[in-house]
């Protein structure tokens, strides 16, 4: 078989050439340089950098807070999506449009704004600190920032799935005597579960690499409130390029694993829908 199938339309050579050239120059070659830089290290050196106590501490915070934030979004993202799809209330359209705000808002802005709100003199931090909860400059603050960043991913993935739930099935189940919780568990949840898992992984993937909105609200103390991307920046500022590259490769590998998981989840979700005849 030929490389491409014939077509009456022109411009394949030009656009394909431009696309691959641009892609290679901006994305692929630079990423390859990163992998090469890490590969130029001795195995022992690589392991030493990647498994140093400070690096391990940063993974614990980055991955722990990201899982926690994505988990919070699993619950609240679903509730928000449900509210927007099922209920009619004043201001619903405005709220729906504002869900995308964390996408559009520069991360530095959400970073300083969240820090101000949750600091001990802030609008919300004031009351939380009375209860003994300190959000700003602790791991809780990191989780709050990552929750905000991940929220639109969950809501926007679950919304279309919820809209597809067949209302007549719900009505039929209720007429046959099923309780509301039973309907939720057996009809609604199975339909939206793949979307929720996809939203979870998307929110998690975004959170792990997040930098701008976190560094203001995190205390940035080594081992305690230092995220992995910040450790990479610190290594770069020390001109320890190889150390930075090694940490970068660890993050890249994990990102790709997550990306693969998203693809598998989506395939699984599609197959489920086909199998149940929807």
């Amino acid at each position: 078989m030929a490389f491409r199938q014939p077509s009456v339309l022109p411009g394949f050579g030009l656009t394909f050439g431009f696309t691959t050239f641009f892609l290679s120059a901006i994305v692929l070659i630079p990423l390859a340089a990163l992998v090469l830089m890490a590969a130029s290290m001795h195995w022992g050196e690589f392991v030493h950098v990647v498994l140093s106590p400070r690096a391990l501490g940063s993974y614990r915070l980055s991955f722990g807070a990201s899982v926690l934030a994505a988990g919070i979004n699993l619950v609240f993202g679903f509730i928000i999506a449900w509210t927007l799809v099922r209920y009619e209330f004043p201001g619903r359209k405005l709220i729906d449009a504002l869900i995308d705000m964390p996408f559009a808002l520069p991360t530095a802005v959400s970073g300083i704004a969240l820090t101000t709100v949750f600091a001990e003199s802030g609008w919300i931090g004031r009351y939380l600190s009375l209860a003994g909860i300190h959000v700003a400059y602790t791991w809780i603050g990191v989780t709050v920032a990552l929750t905000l960043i991940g929220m639109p991913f969950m809501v926007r993935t679950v919304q279309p799935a919820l809209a597809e739930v067949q209302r007549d099935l719900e009505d039929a189940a209720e007429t046959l005597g099923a309780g509301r919780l039973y309907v939720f568990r057996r009809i609604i949840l199975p339909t939206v579960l793949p979307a929720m898992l996809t939203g979870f992984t998307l929110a998690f993937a975004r959170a792990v690499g997040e930098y701008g909105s976190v560094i203001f609200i995190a205390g940035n103390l080594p081992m305690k409130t230092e995220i992995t991307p910040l450790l990479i920046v610190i290594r770069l500022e020390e001109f320890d390029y190889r150390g930075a590259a090694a940490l970068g490769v660890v993050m890249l590998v994990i990102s790709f694993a997550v990306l693969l998981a998203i693809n598998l989840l989506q395939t699984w979700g599609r197959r489920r829908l086909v199998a149940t005849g929807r």
Partner: protein
Amino acid sequence: MAGGPIQAVREELTTRPGGDALWALLTRWLLIALSLAFLAALLFAPLATVFATALEHGVKLYLATFNDADTRSAVRLTLLTAAVVVPLNTLFGLAASWCIAKFEFKGKSFLITLIDLPLAVSPVISGMVYVLLFGLQGWFGHFLQEHDISIIFALPGIIIATMFVTFPYVARELIPLMQQLGNDEEEAAMTMGAGAWMTFFRVTLPKVRWGLIYGVILCNARAMGEFGAVSVVSGHIRGLTNTMPLHIEILYNEYNFTGAFAVASLLTLLAVLTLIIKTLVERTGYKRR
């Protein structure tokens, strides 16, 4: 303890006619309240705080921020970066979507995955790859120094790092749209004798215009607001390599909160404008795929 009365109310509710509707109403308002409380704490309060802090010491001090030479140069640099990056990535998006949506070739889905790659990478890594290539200790660092070319800690570095981060935005919007709209009109135009460029400008471009606008405004918002990647390559030189988000960081760390939030308020307005255009585009019937 309180089980007695609550139990009674529950029984009353479940046995009374219309009790179900009352339960539905209760859950409904509870869920709406939960959603609003969550959004209020995480989204609305921070947004309001941007403007409240910026205007805390009066409009005069707020406006004074924009008379500062460093702030002005940060705004200029951000505008310049977006003016270079957005057109280039739009051109790329058009080329990539034409090539992917109009033709069948081997390795197409692999190519799409590669285009999406920058979205999966941490912004810090997006900046770092260029430091590793062009930085002092990087692959080409020595060569660049000998020829007195600066990329890292200079404008070219800021532009390419921003390009990396915003690379897929237009392409991602256009590829599924063009695939869905099909090739029939283009093929008809070509067989009736229209030239290649005429077909593109008179048939394809009008067909995908809303998706194109959508992609361009998202690309622009990200280009102007990018922090992590640019922070790594910029060197934070005041008045020279400081973009608006980086300038916010400097002012904030100097405890100049009025200044930091004044600059932040501009970027917040940009985000609001982006969302307004996005909503207007969606109102034309355009749907994201």
